[in-house]
Every structure is written in C-alpha cells, then in structure tokens.
C-alpha cells in the first residue's frame, strides 16, 4: 500500500496478502463480532491519546463542515471591502485578492474535503469488498478474471486517471468522488480476498456448509462479518488519500466551480505568494490537520480492531 501509514503494509502491495499475512482477527475472534465486541474494542483501541485527539479533531471538523454557514462569518465567495487584508481582528485568516474572507473559505471548504474523503473511501471499500469476496469465495475463472482486473487498476497511475476523467467528464463533486472511489479499491479487494480464502477453511464455515447452507448465506452471514473489520481499517486509509487527491486536482484547476474547496484556495494563492502568504498557509494547514486526524484515527481503528491488543487488555 503506497503511502501507507501502517508499518505492516509499508512494504507494499507485492507482499503476498495470503491468509497468514492478512489481519489475524479471522483466526482469533471469528464468530464473535457483535455490536458489543465492536464497542469494547473501540474503547480499548482509542486509549491511545493521539488516536483519541485525532478522533476529537475529526468530530470537530465534521461539526464545522455541517454548520459551515452558521460558523463562518462570511459566505465563502462573499467579497468584502478589503482585499489582501493580512490576518487581523476582523479577518482572522486575512482576505484574498477579491476581498473574500479566508477563514470563511476554510470553514466552507471542509465540506468538500470531508465529503469527498469519506464518500470516495466508502465507494472504494464497497467495491473492494464486493470484488474481493466474489474472487475469494467463488475462485476459479471468476477469481482469475477479477484479480487480473485488480492488477490492472493497481498499476494505473491513480492521480493521472482521476485528472483525465475529471477534466473530460466534468469536475462536479460527485464525479470526483466516483472517480477517486473507483480507483482506490484494489487494496481492499486483495485484503478481503485473502481473508476470505483463510476463513473458507475454518471449521465454522465448513460446519455451515455441512448442514447444507446456501453459498450466498454462508458468504453473507458467516464469512463477510468476520472479514469486515480489516476492510474498514484499509478503507480508513483511503479517506486521507482521497482528500489529498481531491486537493491536488482542485489545485490544478480541476474542481467543482460552485463549491469552496481548500485545493482551489491554494490554486488561487499560487499567484499571490509574494503578497499574501496567508492565502496559502491556512487552507493548506486545514488539509494537513484533516488528513493527519483521519490517518491517526485510522491507526486507532487499526489498534481497536487488532485482537492482539484486545487480549492484552
């Protein structure tokens, strides 16, 4: 997993994601994934102070995004009388070339970033789960076909595909979400496939098969719930990636023209670096804080769902 923050997958996708190198909850905690278990492991994993802070920051950001129009002192595109006002009492983060309040832009920009981040990651996780479970569960030619497709998507330079598609089909937010979402699934698919291959051999699956369980039911009721935690962790990694990708696209001028976004603000700032450093500093800081919070919270999630930590508690 390139740019991964986790050590276990820092050595990249070419390390075999076989049954043994996948996440171990399948082996240790199968059939125990109820809401209670999730809640318990959640509180255990988030004992880590950095993960807890990150989760809080993330919550705060979501609130800010949700109530942007109430919180921001001005509208995102509303022009005030002073242009290039440095950060001060009236404009906390200064204003840009057209006199728009940078703070208000940053507050409104949280919406696009968080929406793109979470929805794109949700899309790629969902696609990954579908592809991975079909490949792992049914095997045979379907597996071969799906895995070659996965290979293809994995070698595609993601940023360039997203750029091309968004530039040609239109850079509305939903397009961007779908493009990023449909590019990020290979890692999840591989992970889920590995999990399912190993779960398939477990006694409780064979037992349900022995009593005449239907394939679809075995997959949906017995296997998937156990493979889900690792998919969620892998998906959490995609959130930060998606936010960065969206920011990069808007920085190049490919973004929804009707929405305030941090990348677009940085694009605008580029022309005025000499005169207005605040136009660059604050939107970028917002991206950094958001992605850092997402990544650290993802690490917390990883710990929360890691049974090794669970047993120690």
């Amino acid at each position, binding site marked *: 997993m*390139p*740019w*991964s*923050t986790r*050590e276990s997958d*820092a*050595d*990249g*996708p*070419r390390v075999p994601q076989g049954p043994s190198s996948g996440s171990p909850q399948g082996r240790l905690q199968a059939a125990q994934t109820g809401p209670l278990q999730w809640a318990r492991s959640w509180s255990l994993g988030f004992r880590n102070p950095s993960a807890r802070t990150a989760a809080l920051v993330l919550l705060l950001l979501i609130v800010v995004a949700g109530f942007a129009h109430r919180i921001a002192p001005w509208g995102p595109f509303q022009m005030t009388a002073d242009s290039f006002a440095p950060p001060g009492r009236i404009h906390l983060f200064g204003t840009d070339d057209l006199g728009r309040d940078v703070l208000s832009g940053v507050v409104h920009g949280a919406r696009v970033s968080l929406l793109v981040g979470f929805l794109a990651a949700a899309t790629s996780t969902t696609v990954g789960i579908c592809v991975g479970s079909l490949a792992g569960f049914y095997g045979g030619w379907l597996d071969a076909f799906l895995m*070659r497709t996965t*290979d*293809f998507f994995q*070698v*595609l*330079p*993601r*940023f*360039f*595909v997203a*750029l*091309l*598609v968004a*530039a*040609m*089909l*239109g850079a509305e937010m939903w397009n961007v979400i779908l493009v990023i979402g449909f590019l990020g699934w290979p890692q999840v698919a591989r992970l889920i496939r590995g999990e399912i291959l190993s779960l398939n051999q477990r006694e409780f699956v064979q037992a349900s098969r022995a009593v005449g369980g239907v394939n679809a039911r075995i997959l949906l009721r017995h296997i998937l719930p156990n493979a889900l935690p690792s998919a969620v962790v892998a998906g959490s990694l995609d959130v*930060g990636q998606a936010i*960065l990708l969206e*920011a*990069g696209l808007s*920085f*190049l*001028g*490919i973004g929804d023209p009707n929405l305030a976004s941090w*990348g677009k603000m*940085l694009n605008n*700032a*580029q022309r005025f*670096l*000499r005169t207005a*450093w605040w136009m*660059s*500093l604050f*939107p*970028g800081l917002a*991206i*950094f804080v958001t*992605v*850092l919070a997402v*990544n*650290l919270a993802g690490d917390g999630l990883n710990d929360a769902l890691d049974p090794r930590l669970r047993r120690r508690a």
Partner: protein
Amino acid sequence: MRSLALRWLQLIPLLLGVIVINFVLVHAAPGDPISFLVGDFPAPEEYVQQLRVKFGLDQPLAVQLGRYLHHALRGDLGFSFAQRRPVLTVVFERATATLILSLSALCFGTILGVALGVVASLRRGGLLDTITIMLATAGFSFPLFWVGQLALIFLSLKLGLFPIEGMQSVRESYSGAAYYLDILHHLALPAFVLSLQFLAITARLTRTSMLHTLAQEYITAARAKGLPEAAVVLKHALRNSLISVLTIVGQNFGYVLAGSVLIETVFGWPGIGRLLFDSVRMRDYPVLMGVFVVVSVTVFLANMVTDLCYALVDPRIRR
C-alpha cells in the same frame, strides 16, 4: 529471470487498457469530438459531415476503436490542438525536466530516508527514533504542493536562499560548470520538497526492516565474533534490509510523478506538470490523454527496472 520476461507481457494489457480508457472517455465526454475541432464557430453542416468522414467518426464504434488502437500502438497519440503539434513530441519535450526532478527527489529521499531509518533503528525509542516516527506520520498527511508554497514563500521570497521560478536563470546565461550549478540551484528546493513523502516512507520502512534484521541470529553471531559495530550494522544488517526498501522505489515512482506534477506547478518547473496545468486550462484533451499513456508506461518501466535490480541484489530471486 524467466518470470521477469513473463512480466513484460503485462505491458500489453496495460497499454490496451489505458488506450481503451482514453477512447471511452472521448466518447463519454459531453459534446461531439467534432465540436473540439470546429469550436463554437457556426460551421456549415456539409463541412462538419466532411470532417466526420475524414476522421472516421461516421464508422461504428468498434471500427473507430480499432483504428485508434492501431495509431496509438504505432506511437501516434494524437494532435495537440492548442500547440498545433503531435502530442508525443509535446510530451517528450517536457519529459526530461520532469524526469530530472523526480529522479533527484527519489535519490534524495532514498538516501536520506535510509540514513534516518538506520539511525532511528539503532536507538529504538530514542529522540531520533521518535522524530522519525513523527516525521513519517506527518509525511503522509500534508499536501506536498502546499509545503512547496510555504518553502517558496519563506526560503525563496523572504530569505532569498533559492531562485523563485524555473529551471535556469533567465537573466544570465552560464556555460560549463556554472550552467549545471545554476540548474542544481534551481533544482534543490523543488526536489527536496518532492522527496519528503518518499523520504517518510523509506525512513519508516528502513527502520522496521532494520529492527527486524538486527534481531536475527546471524547478527548476534557477527557481534560475537568481534566485528566492529559499524561493520555489523552497515555490512550485515543494512544490506539485507535494503532489499525491502528497493522494492518500494519502483512502486512509488507513480506517486512521485504525480507529486512532481503539482510541485512543478508551484515552482514553475518546465515539465509535464506545467504542460498538464496549461492543457487543462486550454481544454487540450489529446495532451492530457497522451500524458496519461506516457506516464502509465513509465511507471510500468520503473517497476520493471526495480524488479531487475531486485533480482541482481537478492540471489534467491535470480533462479
């Protein structure tokens, strides 16, 4: 080595896939491809029809795809409307600058990242180790182009340590060594910023891999026979740890190229990034598609080179 040769075959589906994506996009994009050519000018219907026949747009889609593939595989990636030149010429012209930038960033990131990772692993939990881990975490979280903007504001504009824009000084023309030094001076800051993310990965991976290697029995044996610590770390441990580092160089080449595109925009580096930026603005789609094909192939080649190096370094794979 045979498996390496087989991997070359993967280039075929990759190329086909990339070209099909391009083709589908052209036809899925709003508006007729003809409208790109004719523009908003009210052209007579007859002329439009004539163009349609000339470019084969009256043929069934399958025939068009076949024709497109045929052209693309012969290296004809289309024509840049904005620049009035073949796409491939335009892209290759800019490729050198991008390669200089990304390869320097890769080298810099690898060397510094490995050094940082080794030092961190020697004192686990020490100050440098903590800093490395923090840096690695932060390294994944900031948009590189923003760091580039900040570096430009503070190091170039405020302190005047580095040139502000471009690859060479415009006002003076240098020759000989001064010419290369001038480029190097322009290169230093963008390459450093571009290397940061890769540096973070390398440092983290080296650290993990070194910690793993240092716990092996043959390291204890080397120490027990009285080898100096430097020899144990550098010759015995590092050499084995480097193998895993090597693999990620190729894998991350695509990411470095993507980062390069953004960094070039910040620093006015005359590479593919600037070309993309301008082409997006001018809606010069053939160039965007050409860049996509060239980048895909380049990333594939980088992976192949990495595999080759991998096989050279690790005798277990050579068989």
